[in-house]
């Protein structure tokens, strides 16, 4: 079942940071910014695992997550309902994400801070269009 379409790809370039929601098994939500949301195939994305330990702990005990991504030109937003699948600490996906993360770190002055520990691969259960980050003001005011 294909749930992701090509129109989502620009929203995964990292131009506008994505935000990830997870939840502990006890029902405590957590929100954090993620540096990378990478298209793996039509049904999977990979997120960079750097240092957000609470997020990692949450998805290991409750595999569901939701990530909000934003198209950098149109400001259209989508939420992706995710289910944690597995982590990769070597191989082509990890190497590509590591290289991209170093580029992001260099551009944002975070070269000494960002270090990829793993590429966490999630199954995409659903994609929901969430309108635009900002909605146009109506004619004549707000």
């Amino acid at each position, binding site marked *: 079942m294909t749930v992701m379409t090509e129109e989502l790809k620009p929203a995964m370039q990292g131009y506008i940071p994505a935000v990830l929601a*997870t939840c502990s098994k006890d029902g405590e939500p957590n929100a954090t910014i993620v540096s990378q949301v990478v298209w793996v195939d039509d049904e999977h994305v990979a997120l960079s695992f750097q240092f957000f330990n609470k997020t990692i702990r949450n998805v290991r005990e409750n595999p569901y997550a939701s990530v909000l991504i934003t198209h950098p030109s149109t400001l259209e937003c989508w*939420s992706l309902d995710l289910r944690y699948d597995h982590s990769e600490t070597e191989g082509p996906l990890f190497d590509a994400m590591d290289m991209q993360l170093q580029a992001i770190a260099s551009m944002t002055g975070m070269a000494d801070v960002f270090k990829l520990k793993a590429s966490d691969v999630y199954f995409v259960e659903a994609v929901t269009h969430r309108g635009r980050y900002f909605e146009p003001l109506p004619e004549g005011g*707000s």
Partner: protein
Amino acid sequence: MEAGCGRASAAGTVLCVATQLIPDSVVAVTMTPHVTTIATRDDKNRPSMCLVGFVRIEDDREHVTCFVTERPGGDTRTMLTASRRVALSMGNPATNENYQLKGTVTDLRAMTDAERAHQDALHSQLADLFAMMFPPELVAMARRSSYRPAVAATIRVDSIFVQTPGPGAGASITAAEGAGATAPRAAEGDPR
């Protein structure tokens, strides 16, 4: 501030700063154009997320009011009231200073005119900031738009964490803890 704090006495002004839950550093971020999202979850512990058009810290330094966008693809009010437990991720995009506030939704209501004016002022500052970060077309789009429609949500905060990228990320900075006061409370009705 706690009742009685700041009052004059024979010995001088009574200071109760240590009882404030939300520290000055978090208040300072909310005075600047900040970017915020709110995470919540349903009764099956499946998380969801909404954008927030700014956060205001209330005078008691225990409650915040945030303006949560209402967008297609999910009913914001239902999401916020399903469990009432929420996590706000809030940061200054210019400095990467970021915090997470956790708490319980205590009230939902329509925004007031004064809140819309406050939101518009911060939105204008955010668009100015975007002008240094994004292409002109995107900045122009931001200037012609707003976070509305949105609902005003009052949240009773019980814990605060650093989310600024770096070795300090994840540290609890709930002000009352540092002053030796009570540890963060479990919110009313929260099943954790």
